[in-house]
């Protein structure tokens, strides 16, 4: 379709909507934002007549590549280290995708602009595409990769796992609470506009370096839809900015959305990229370098900062703090260490870092070896069953962390731990901003104004609470993380499948009691709690290089 006819066609389809007089569409999802004074802004023009064939063509390319990967036996050269992390990533990501589809009615309810409604409806079906194409990619991995265990329980694992839950809140954040907070600020302005760059661009390039060219094929196809979604979000933002009353809410939501996306997405994608790769060329970008390029320069400096001309206060402090956590405070490395500590309750395998990895990490993140080297050496020593327990239950100088009540990633930058009583419960938070999110932002009143549409943090947010005081073998068994012989664990702290003696079984983890840090915290006296918090913050959690197990 020519540009001229596309414009005419788009103008024509604007005639489809009308002002109802008999009854108005049900408003089921509230917002505290106001759009009465907003001029109508158009997102990118999209006509379904051209949209469907375009997407079909994209699909054909994807499926052609899948066919080629099987015929060319791509799995002969994929790195197992990489594929194992895909068991976690691909169990999580289809839910946020489908949640984005489900979020569209929230935005449609809230924003009185038929042109944006059209853009949002196209986004809705895009998201169904993304969710199902990703599930199908995982199905292919399950069928052709050497170890299907973990792929085979994928959505069950996602729903009952401590790491799956961190990802789940990302998707739930799109579909619940204030319609604009969820479906516009959190989903589109931050998650899609900023963090899909690392999710769908940076990570696929790492996949290719590890022999997996299907992930880039699928996710670049997904990413090519995102520009339209970003345009939807920007149009709604411009409409919201037309009303002064919305600024306070926008500033609140940008702080919440930025920080939560950083905590969750950087934790996950940073780990996949840094610890899932075998590519240790010194000139390949680290996650921090990718983040600086894709998020700091492309998003923060080119997209967020220009919004200041509209009088919007940008969370500069939180952007800088996120960078500081990633580069100086080793956020991603602490997360990876935590995932590896928790290996018995994973549904994927994590192998130890080697000397080659150490050298690369030290090159990219000076001081890395001093903080993490000895711990990974211990991880390697404790990789096989028989003489020792899983590393979490051996004394290697690593103190199991408390979970952040808001972002649900543990409070890993220990000096930033916040301990507060909220809703009659002692809770821990990874940072002041996560505390603020729970105690201040997600409340029915904000800075003296009523915010009746704002959502709430709910659920059993500390995963460990569900399993407090139970035997580790029973927990793993109930979670379903056991292979088809009924005893060998799906998770293993190494990649060696050749020797059955090296594979951990339920018997190897029986008799180990699992505890919940939050339950323990709530049972402490006032003085015990204060002493605990002080000790937690001051403990560098560094494994001594002399530790022998």
């Amino acid at each position, binding site marked *: 379709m020519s540009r001229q006819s596309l414009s005419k066609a788009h103008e024509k*389809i604007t005639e489809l909507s009308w002002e109802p007089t008999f009854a108005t569409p049900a408003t089921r999802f509230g917002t505290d934002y106001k759009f009465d004074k907003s001029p109508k802004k158009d997102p990118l023009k999209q*006509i379904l007549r051209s949209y469907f064939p375009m997407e079909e063509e994209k699909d054909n390319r994807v499926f052609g590549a899948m066919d080629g990967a099987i015929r060319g036996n791509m799995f002969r050269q994929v790195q197992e280290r990489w594929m194992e992390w895909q068991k976690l990533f691909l169990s999580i990501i289809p839910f946020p995708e489908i949640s984005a589809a489900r979020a569209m009615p929230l935005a449609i309810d809230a924003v009185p602009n038929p042109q944006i409604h059209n853009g949002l409806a196209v986004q809705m079906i895009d998201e169904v595409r993304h969710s199902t194409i990703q599930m199908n990619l995982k199905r292919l991995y399950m069928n052709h990769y050497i170890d299907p265990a973990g792929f085979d329980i994928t959505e069950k694992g996602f729903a009952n796992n401590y790491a799956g839950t961190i990802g789940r809140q990302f998707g739930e954040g799109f579909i619940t609470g204030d319609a604009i907070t969820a479906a516009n600020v959190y989903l589109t302005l931050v998650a899609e506009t900023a963090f899909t760059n690392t999710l769908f661009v940076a990570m696929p390039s790492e996949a290719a370096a590890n022999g997996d060219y299907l992930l880039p094929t699928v996710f670049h196809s997904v990413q090519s839809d995102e520009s339209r979604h970003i345009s939807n979000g920007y149009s709604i933002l411009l409409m919201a900015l037309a009303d002064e009353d919305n600024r306070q809410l926008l500033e609140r939501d940008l702080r919440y959305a930025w920080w939560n996306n950083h905590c969750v997405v950087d934790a996950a994608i940073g780990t996949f990229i840094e610890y899932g790769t075998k590519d240790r060329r010194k000139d390949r970008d680290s996650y921090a370098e990718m983040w600086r390029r894709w998020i700091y320069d492309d998003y923060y400096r080119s997209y967020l900062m220009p919004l200041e001309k509209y009088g919007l206060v940008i969370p500069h402090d939180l952007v800088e703090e996120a960078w500081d956590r990633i580069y100086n405070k080793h956020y991603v490395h602490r997360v990876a260490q935590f995932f590896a500590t928790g290996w018995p309750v994973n549904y994927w395998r994590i192998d130890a870092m080697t000397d080659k990895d150490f050298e690369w990490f030290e090159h990219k993140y000076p001081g890395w070896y001093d903080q993490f080297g000895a711990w990974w050496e211990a991880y390697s020593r404790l990789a096989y069953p028989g003489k020792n327990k899983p590393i979490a239950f051996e004394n290697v100088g690593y103190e199991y962390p408390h979970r952040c009540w808001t972002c649900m990633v543990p409070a890993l930058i220990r000096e930033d731990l916040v301990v507060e009583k909220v809703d009659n419960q002692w809770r821990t938070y990874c940072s002041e901003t996560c505390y603020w999110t729970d105690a201040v932002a997600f409340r029915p009143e904000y800075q003296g104004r009523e915010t009746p549409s704002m959502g709430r943090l709910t659920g059993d947010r500390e995963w460990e609470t569900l399993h407090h005081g139970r035997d580790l073998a029973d927990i793993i068994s109930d979670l379903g993380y056991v292979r088809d012989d009924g005893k060998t664990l799906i998770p293993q702290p190494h990649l060696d499948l050749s020797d059955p003696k090296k594979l951990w079984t339920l018997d190897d983890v029986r008799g180990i009691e699992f505890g919940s840090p939050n339950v323990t915290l709530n049972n402490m006296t006032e003085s015990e709690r204060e002493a605990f918090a002080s000790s937690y913050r001051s403990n560098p959690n560094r494994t001594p290089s002399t530790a022998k197990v």
Partner: protein
Amino acid sequence: MNAPVKQAPAKAPQSFPKPEFTGAEAGMQTFPSSTSRSYNYFKPQKMRATVYEDVTIDVQPDPERHLSQGWLYGFAKSPGGYPQDWTVLKSGNWHAFLDPNEEWEQTIYRNNSNIVRQIELNLQNAKEAGAYAHWSPTWIRFVADNVGAWMHAEHGLGMHVFVSAQRSAPTNMINNAVCVNSVHRLRFAQDLALYNLDLSESIEAFDGKAHKDVWKSSPFWQGVRENVERLTAIGDWAEAIFATNVVFEPLVGVLFRSDLLMQIAARNGDYITPTLIGAGENDYNRDLRYTRALFSLLANDAEYGEANRAVMQSWLDKWVPVSRHAAVELQPIWSQPSERTITFAESFAAATADFNTLIADFGLTSPKEK
């Protein structure tokens, strides 16, 4: 004297990742679960799961299945996630519903691309063949007014019934089916709008703006508009789908599309409009398949079937009069074309017969006309 030539700093040669043969392909080793190559957390309908089942089931988690920590965000005054009480209907197992169309990415794009290609070809051929030259002034006006007005009904239902409802059902299987229904509607509305644009450019006497006034103020169309607007105002997602696909569509949609347009267009020298309308009918037939499967399941639920049938019967009592009224108000347009090959009574009888057959499948009866 020439200025010294500035030398570019020496650049380190770019490095590339090195492919490595890892032998990480299926079957290279035997170990526990080395052959576990199917999703094992749900029971497929047949012996082996379809691609549709694999890519759809349990992607939307459920505390009644594997979800262990509950929903992590709530609305201000109600739980988050996908509460079952967003409809008054109940089910012993919401997950029993599988879309008979097995819609997922590939089916959605193949199906809709085929339709838009077919329509585009038809319109292109029509232009080249001068197909509109034989249309009578009466028929030109009929199409401008009435086919034009119908685009609004499709759009309103697509955007404010089905897009909205796909947020609300308790399972991914239901929500995806509803989502596909919504894009059918929106695509068909755009098909009609772009057809209208084509006709405006091809026929001098064609009033491409008339549809807006007809939809907004023609007395023949106000019953339809009222019905559509009231459908968009329903808060209960199942009621909205039921009142649209089970009541409005057979009594008004099919009546207008199949029992009027498809019957009379050819006799009025128009062989193009039926090809578009046929695409809409094809969409509806596809969407009716999932609708029939969903409400049959609920009507025959071992635990809640009887109560569900009572609710659905009350929905019929509420919505059938609205749609009958809309249909009857449309009656005068049956007299507008020069060639009248079918009467309103005949069309309405055909539509009502299909409607009665549909609701009989659910064990329901049509309310008596007042």
